[in-house]
């Protein structure tokens, strides 16, 4: 049976398979997301959630299956094209922020724009706007080592959104935060994403975080199952 992506989906994957040596991470997983939609990918540790996210973002190439973004097959793109796609269309938030420790917070946020060729001044101006929205503009001159975990994660969210991405990938964005900070980061993240109509792929194993999503996809043993949420 040939599986087809749902109509109108921005990013869709069918029958993804991926193995790391003898370990199967994905075993026929499907996924789709529409513009402006927030989808939580849930599942226990080692179920293949992060691998699914990495495949969807074009970071990891699946062993088989198809991923289309905006009607374009990711497999037909070379590494440079996928990198350009990630720079301009996607945004990323990781569990530990992964901010560049040597750069100041504003420089970190401006980095994706600078990689796209925006001048430093303009990039930092745009970065500051996003930092204000995420309430971390007072940290602009500080380095990541000098800010708290929650603050750092909000800086990372600002960095992910600064290019106005069409898809935001968030891999356990609150995994290293306490519940209060986690709530705050999720609130700001989803609010900012909705305001720009960005789709959010949110990998988490916390129901509390998944509650911010419109829909949940559960991954177990490398297979995905869509759980429609009544809004």
């Amino acid at each position, binding site marked *: 049976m040939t599986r087809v992506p749902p109509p109108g989906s921005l990013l869709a994957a069918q029958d993804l398979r991926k193995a790391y040596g003898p370990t199967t991470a994905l075993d026929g997983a499907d996924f789709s997301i529409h513009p402006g939609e927030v989808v939580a990918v849930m599942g226990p*540790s*080692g179920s293949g959630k*992060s691998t699914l996210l*990495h495949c969807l*973002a074009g*970071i*990891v190439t699946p062993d088989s299956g198809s991923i289309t973004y905006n009607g374009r097959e990711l497999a037909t793109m070379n590494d*440079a094209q996928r*990198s*350009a*796609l*990630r*720079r*301009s269309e*996607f*945004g*990323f938030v*990781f*569990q*530990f922020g*992964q901010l*560049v*420790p*040597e*750069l*100041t917070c504003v*420089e970190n946020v401006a*980095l*994706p724009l*600078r*990689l796209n060729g925006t001048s*430093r001044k303009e990039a930092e101006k745009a970065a500051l706007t996003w930092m204000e929205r995420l309430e971390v503009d007072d940290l602009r001159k500080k*380095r*990541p*080592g*000098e800010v708290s975990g929650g603050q750092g994660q909000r800086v990372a969210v600002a*960095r*992910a959104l600064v290019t106005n991405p069409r898809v935001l990938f968030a*891999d356990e964005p609150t995994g290293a935060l306490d519940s209060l900070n986690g709530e705050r980061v999720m609130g700001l993240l989803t609010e900012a994403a909705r305001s720009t109509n960005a789709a959010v792929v949110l990998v988490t194993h916390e129901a509390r975080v998944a509650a911010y999503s419109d829909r949940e996809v559960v991954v177990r043993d490398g297979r995905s199952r869509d759980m429609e949420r009544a809004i």
Partner: protein
Amino acid sequence: MSARRGHLPLERSREWGRSRDLAMGARFAFTGGREGWVRMLLTAVGVGLGVALLLLFAAIPNALAVRQDRETARTDLSYQYIESPLKKADNTLVVGEAGTAFRDKEVRGRELQPEGPRAPLPPGVSKLPGVGEMVVSPALKRLLQSGEGRLLRERLPERIVGTIAEPGLIGAQELAFYRGADTLVVKEGSGLVERIDRFGAGFKTPEKRDPVLVLLALVVFLVLLLPVGVFIAAAVRFGGERRDRRLAALRLVGTDSRTTRRIAAGEALAGSVAGLAFGTVFFLLVRELSGSVDLFDVSVFPSYLIPSLVLALLVAVAVPAAAVLVTLFALRGVVIEPLGVVRTAKPPRRRLWWRILLPVGGLGLLYPMIGKDRYGRDFNQYQVTGGVLLLLVGVTALLPWVVETVVARLGSGGVAWQLAIRRLQLSSGTAARMVNGVAVAVAGAIALQMLFSGVQGQYTKHTANDPTRAQMSADLPDEVPLARAAADFKATRGVAKVDAYDEGRVSDRREGATNSAQVTIADCASLREVASFPSCKDGDAFAVRGGDDEVDELGAADLSKAGTKLWFDADDGSPADHRPTSWSVPAGVKQARAIADPSGYKRGGLLLTPGALPSGGAPGLHGQIYLALDQGLAAAPDYARNTARRLGMPTDPVMLVSSKRDDTYASIRTFLFVGAAGVLALIGASLLVSQLEQLRERRKLLSSLIAFGTRRRTLCLSVLWQTAIPIGLGLALATALGVTLGAALLRMTDKPVGVDWASVLSMTGIATAVVLLVAVLSLPPLLRLMRPDGLRTE
């Protein structure tokens, strides 16, 4: 008593606690899974390489001493006039020089002719070879038996009846032979054929220690040793960031800060002890391999390489001690808290004042040595050593400050530049540490190059030879006719041109001459090589002006008038047989102007073409030949040597060289090149390991940067900038301090101070090449680390 009893257990328990902490640190060094083992291996290999080099340096004095002793023990030809020469006896041996060369390598050779049953045996030889036999060194035997040595075999056709054992050789790769003879005639003091009754008979003149050479040797050792020290210090800090995180975790479970430091010390101690073990193994491997290596014509036997016990013990104690001190020093500016290491915050600015004191102190120690007695009466080795050490250590102290100060002022640029600059601003110490070794090596090498250039005139003799015109010359023995020799050499492969001269003297009387002049006979083409004249044909004679010898100048003026009767081989009262033959200066004798022959000598007196000679030929002449070789044929000198041997010449034609270097000076320079190559290789390895270590630490960050679309080129460029900027600054500082040190050393040797910019550029160029090579070698692992696998957490 009870108090005492109560006190001791407390002390003991403290001691026990400290030992336990150290042991725990040591255990951490060896545990921790694959990561831990890799880190441990890197440290042990790094320290091991340094230790091996230190042990090698510690063994070199012994190796040189053994070589010297063996050379002395086999001394035979005195090259000196002996007032009461030995008489032939049953315990005497006639020794003839028979050395030759193969390619650029010397072949030590002797002919031995026993005069009785008790004739002495050379060291390493159990039986004297008979006529037509020879005993050879193992390296020569291998060469002669290989196809490669075919040309040499033509010169040494004797049957090989034995090999020279180790006591008779100064190196495993030395080419040497003894062959039997029965026609040797003693020529006392000639250095060619002498009579001896034992080998090693104290002909050696006592060697004076030239303070300049002592200074050179000292500085060479320091320049080579210091980067090794810096390297070892860097090696024990491999994996430092990971260790800090581990220590933080220990703090979390309740260890206090002192215990934490002791654990860190234990870890460093274990790494350095493993490094000592690795170093010993590396040294033993190098020692075994040393027998098969020949560097710049110097080889040793493995048994020569025995480190001095004191130096070996010093290495065994100093390396672990230094490792612990370096670790504790590194932790000095770090606060290990239960929730992490407080180092991520901006460190306090480095202070300049104490850093500048080191080079200034060094100069202060060297300054009083300037203008001291050139011959060493006031030469204080310790003061010089201290001064040089302080100046070079000054490089390592100043560099972190320079890097920090400069990068703090660097503006923004592209993303790669920005990433690099920010990283350098945050951790300039790490960057400076990485290039410290290179900077010290370059500073030392620049100073040494300046010193070498400054004093080389003192140790290099310019010979006046002109090797562009002829590359070999030979004085023919009386029994070898010049015409035959010239014909044979002309027919020799690789010989492009032969100029043959018969030389002698003509006198105004048959015996008891009052006036004489040099006479040179050759064809017109060869005469043009020694004089300039308008025209020449066979039968012409020339009176030469402008020769080197004033007597010939006067003689030529008086004796060159047409019709003057002159005598070849006049009786001058010497014991040799004379056959005076008269000859009259022909009419129309021409004037000629002397020009230097290829050996640099200007002949005076008379020049004759063969047609101008007396009809019966001229007696008392001896032949000299100059050979111009085909420069495209590397074996040309060997073909010429083989021809000389076929002609029955006792020695090889001499190679004409424009300069000759003092042996000790040349040895020190050779040692510098060998040592510098080793040190640079070591530094390159250290840089690579440090680079990889840092990249591994940043694996996740690199992967995340790639995830959000950073070009790999941007990251590679950023890594390159991170290396290039500190190395540029390091080399600039090294040049400044190296030139300062070089100037001070030159002033100490009373030489004018001049900067040899070619050397400076070549040294910095070599260092840059090493760093670039390291950067290129670190690119594949960098690209591998940028793969998305780094993002995986499970």
